[in-house]
């Protein structure tokens, strides 16, 4: 949870984990993320955490499927043997594509402005998923939902990082829950095999007031 004093606090992932120096990667979105983007080197950053579960780290060959700023959380997983399926709305929102080896990445955009047009789930069949020791995904919930249906039988060990409103980060406020589990504590990383396709995932979530809303594209 990253706090900009006087502005607000938002959940962010570490985009560098190893070593003494860490990093976060922020997408310009609303008030807090914009305030963060004004920070200069040497400025003090206020945070608490990290909270919850992380991806299982591996040095083996892995498949990294990222949508938009979801790549921030996936970045620490990129290694020499990684294969990436990196997507975004438009080409200039693509993140960390240069961190993959040449010929180890597929790029796609919603508008086709860069790489292939479409979503990672549309192209999953074109890669042989059995070759990967681990599969990770982070991005919009509908992208995860589409991936879920393609992976649930073959790869229940694949790991998804989920997103919800997160107000407390410590399992008390219930704003982040999916099917009674607090994503800030028991997540955000969950295994595909643990997801209930008939529950809230991909269907419903609570908004900032606690009002139940449907998840649409």
């Amino acid at each position, binding site marked *: *949870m990253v*706090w900009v*004093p*006087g502005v*607000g*606090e*938002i959940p962010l992932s570490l985009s560098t984990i190893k070593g003494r120096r860490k990093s976060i990667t922020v997408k310009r979105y609303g008030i807090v993320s914009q305030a963060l983007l004004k920070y200069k080197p040497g400025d*003090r950053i*206020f945070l*608490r955490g990290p909270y919850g579960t992380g991806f299982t780290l591996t040095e083996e060959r892995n498949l990294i499927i990222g949508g938009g700023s979801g790549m921030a959380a996936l970045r620490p997983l990129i290694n020499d043997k990684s294969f990436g399926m990196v997507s975004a709305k438009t080409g200039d929102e693509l993140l960390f594509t240069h961190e993959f080896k040449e010929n180890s990445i597929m790029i796609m955009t919603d508008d086709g402005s860069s790489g292939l047009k479409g979503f990672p789930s549309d192209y999953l069949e074109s890669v042989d998923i059995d070759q990967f020791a681990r599969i990770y995904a982070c991005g919009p919930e509908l992208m995860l939902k589409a991936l879920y249906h393609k992976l649930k039988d073959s790869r229940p060990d694949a790991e998804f990082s989920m997103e919800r409103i997160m*107000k*407390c*980060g*410590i*399992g*008390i*406020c*219930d*704003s982040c*829950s*999916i*099917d*009674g*589990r*607090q994503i800030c*504590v028991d997540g955000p990383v969950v295994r595909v095999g643990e997801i209930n396709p008939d*529950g*809230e995932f991909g269907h419903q979530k*609570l908004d*900032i*007031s*606690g*009002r*139940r809303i449907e998840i649409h594209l």
Partner: protein
Amino acid sequence: MIDLGVSIAGIDLENPFVLASGILDENGYTLVEVLRSGASAVVTKSIGLEERKGYIPPVVYELPYGLLNAIGLSNPGIEHYSHEISIAIREKKPIIGSVFGSTPEEFAHLSSRMEDFGVSAVELNLSCPHVKGYGQEVGSDPNLVRDIVRSVKRKVDVPVFAKLSPNVSDIQAIAEAAIDADGFTLINTVKAMKIDIYARQPVLSNVYGGLSGSAIKPVGIRYVYEIASNFDRPIFGVGGITTAEDAVEYIMAGASAVQVGTAVARVGKRVFNKLISEMRDFMEREGFSKIGDMKGVALRR
């Protein structure tokens, strides 16, 4: 044979451990999980007439011995919340609907809707900021408290609990004003705040928040003891309960049952099963067979 069952204002509970209002009770599916984890009942988040976003985060701050929060009564509004209750109610355990408002009419309407949704009781959160005064709370104005409780009692048939604020000069005057209620819930959080000396700013976006957890247990015990000594109404004890020994302390001070809030975050939902087994052990060791046998034993009458 150890019997953990209690009855409070006519509501039968399989054990004395109830989820406190505002903790893991925004989403109906979470309520289901809490009940399956051993809670004998749940109190809902405090619900108002209209949808409210609450305060901008930071809305919580962890202290070594407690938690500060200023969620700001975020809630989807009473009509939208009915869906969450409909999910939780399938567990067939009591749901206690917590409501907040600023006028007797609001409280009465909200309570009556809660009753329609099928709750077993309502809890009146009398600790929210009071629009009329300045820096004051609904719960520190005896006349308003009296009117609220009476209006609600006239409107609903389920038992009504008045949840009182610890931020008052004279709790007995407030309890006296709320005497038409079927029971009391004591206590809500203690007004407090935290400054980050490196940021040189208050940490909560609302500046002030409510302190809960271990730090306030001695304050909660004091209120329960004081009210149990002076009034003949069942009491839910709440504030800083993490172990069965904490719960026993509240019960010996006069509480019929207890509610657990902050510990659910600190320990997880399994705190309820932990409390149940610790309570059995304690009662066995100390020779108590019923929760009721411990009730109020520390009171000097």
